[in-house]
């Protein structure tokens, strides 16, 4: 009935369980949700890139950013609906707005963002139209919508961290202070990746560096400061994914900074950052799932808390 933790990071943790069965239930989510974490972040990062391009008069950045944002948002919509047990009922999310449900808040954030991102992207076809009313109103409408999408983008990129953390999944919940920074950084880096491929100007390089820094910092904290609950992120499939993610991020940043003179190196760095963002999201997803599947991660931290070794009272105010 009792089991011994056999992984190197646990100092021989003894705990009891019901025939080794999990206590909390892993989210019944497939990789669609992990993919959505990436595409949602990519949409947000691209919309911010597009707004930057719009305000600093870089049409190529603006156009690519808007198109990438729309593509990513469309993919996100698919992943979100596909993962429902009853996809035809996805509109039921819109019958309430519930602050205690990050998924409810996220649905509204996502809806607002996709509307704006859609208008901004459609506006890009204006030059292809014959002289007409549409051709005249689309660019200003796109400008407003582009800034609107950018205003919502940070919320879109970070609410997903709350979505994962607001569960009984031990390693997601415990990571709630840093997870939004990982996701914000990952979204920025992927948006910068799009920029590095389209138009590698200094602004995209700086965005890549700042995004990667946030992502690496947050991930490092999660992997090292959560005691036994860091373990699922360091071992198994999640550990491998996060290590690959880190390497790809580092390569992407190095390429973005050092490959300044080469379009090819810049584009490859952009690809590397995009891949890093996706792989990191999958790593975080898998780490949490692993922590829910093993009762050790539910029992031991709660036992420690009961023993008073980790003070964990209600939060101040």
């Amino acid at each position: 009935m009792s089991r011994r933790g056999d992984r190197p990071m646990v100092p021989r943790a003894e705990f009891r369980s019901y025939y080794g069965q999990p206590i909390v239930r892993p989210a019944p989510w497939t990789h669609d949700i992990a993919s959505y974490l990436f595409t949602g972040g990519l949409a947000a990062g691209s919309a911010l890139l597009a707004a930057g391009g719009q305000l600093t008069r870089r049409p190529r950045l603006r156009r690519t950013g808007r198109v990438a944002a729309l593509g990513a948002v469309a993919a996100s919509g698919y992943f979100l609906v596909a993962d429902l047990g009853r996809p035809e009922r996805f509109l039921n999310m819109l019958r309430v707005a519930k602050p205690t449900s990050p998924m409810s808040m996220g649905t509204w954030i996502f809806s607002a963002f996709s509307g704006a991102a859609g208008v901004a992207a459609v506006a890009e076809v204006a030059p292809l139209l014959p002289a007409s009313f549409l051709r005249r109103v689309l660019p200003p409408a796109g400008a407003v919508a582009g800034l609107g999408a950018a205003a919502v983008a940070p919320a879109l990129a970070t609410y997903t961290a709350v979505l994962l953390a607001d569960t009984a999944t031990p390693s997601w919940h415990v990571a709630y202070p840093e997870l939004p920074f990982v996701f914000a950084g990952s979204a920025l880096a992927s948006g910068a990746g799009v920029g590095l491929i389209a138009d590698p100007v200094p602004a995209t390089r700086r965005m890549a560096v700042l995004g990667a820094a946030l992502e690496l910092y947050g991930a490092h904290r999660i992997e090292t400061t959560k005691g036994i609950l860091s373990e699922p992120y360091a071992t198994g499939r999640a550990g491998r994914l996060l290590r690959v993610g880190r390497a790809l991020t580092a390569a992407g940043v190095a390429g973005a900074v050092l490959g300044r003179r080469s379009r090819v190196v810049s584009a490859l760095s952009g690809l590397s950052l995009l891949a890093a963002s996706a792989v990191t999201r999958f790593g975080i997803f898998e780490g949490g799932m692993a922590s829910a599947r093993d009762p050790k991660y539910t029992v031991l931290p709660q036992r420690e808390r009961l023993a008073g070794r980790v003070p964990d009272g209600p939060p101040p105010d």
Partner: protein
Amino acid sequence: MGINSLYGPLDPAPDAGYPDAPPRMGFFTDTSVCIGCKACEVACKTWNAIPDDGFNLLGHSYDNTGGLSADSWRHVAFIEQPAVDALAAAGRPEPQFLGMPGTTLPGESVPAGSRTDFRWLMMSNVCKHCTHAGCLDVCPTGSLFRTEFGTVVVQEDICNGCGYCVAACPYGVIDRREDDGRAWKCTLCYDRLGDGLTPACAQACPTESIVFGELSELHARADERVAKLHADGVGSARLYGHDQDDGVGGDGAFFLLLDEPEVYGLPPDPIVTTRDLPDMWKRAGLAALAMAASVAVSFLGRRG
């Protein structure tokens, strides 16, 4: 929404907007008298027309249900525990004579302390109908709701199977049904309660291990029972989920256990995840600001 809506002691039905709510109803499951007959499982399935969950032999004990799931809203856990070193006991050369069937209580003629070298623990598990229910807090469709009796119920015509509640329950209770895509769990027989009936499981339990009633009365009854067991020398008896100051504000369905909760597959110190939600949104807000600032810095810098 009141000050303790997310965490802390609370009477859930008035907080959810029922001004004249009836008393809060619940279950007290006293595992010390459970005989593991599984009448509750059967009664629950029958009344609620729940599909079977496979006819499996799990091979670890007399428990072949395995756990609570979308298709098992009551689950009888069965634990065989060595009371002495199991290996030494197994090494005994002669088969043991267990005695003829008799009319006295088992073990009565044997001196206390040397009765058996193992014990059986049985517990009928169920949804806790938490005061602060993570499942209900996170449900994005409003499918999960609080009833006037203070219980937590899924409306199957609204649930879209997003699965969020499944990940949010600190007890691993609620579950999504494979072929139907929606979330299911114990309703504390909401349909029976409305008609003044006892939930099917409590009605069927032959030993009154499952007692249904007003939560305040159940608490008093449970305190008495623990005191009695302690007086009888069963020092391991303890209540679980009765304390309104615990991490979920106390459970509407609470238990008397004879060992540590995790032995029965229960979390030793569950905390509702939404306790930290205000903090989570704050951290997300900070990260969002950092994100916007990073873009501003990137594009305001030298054009080069």
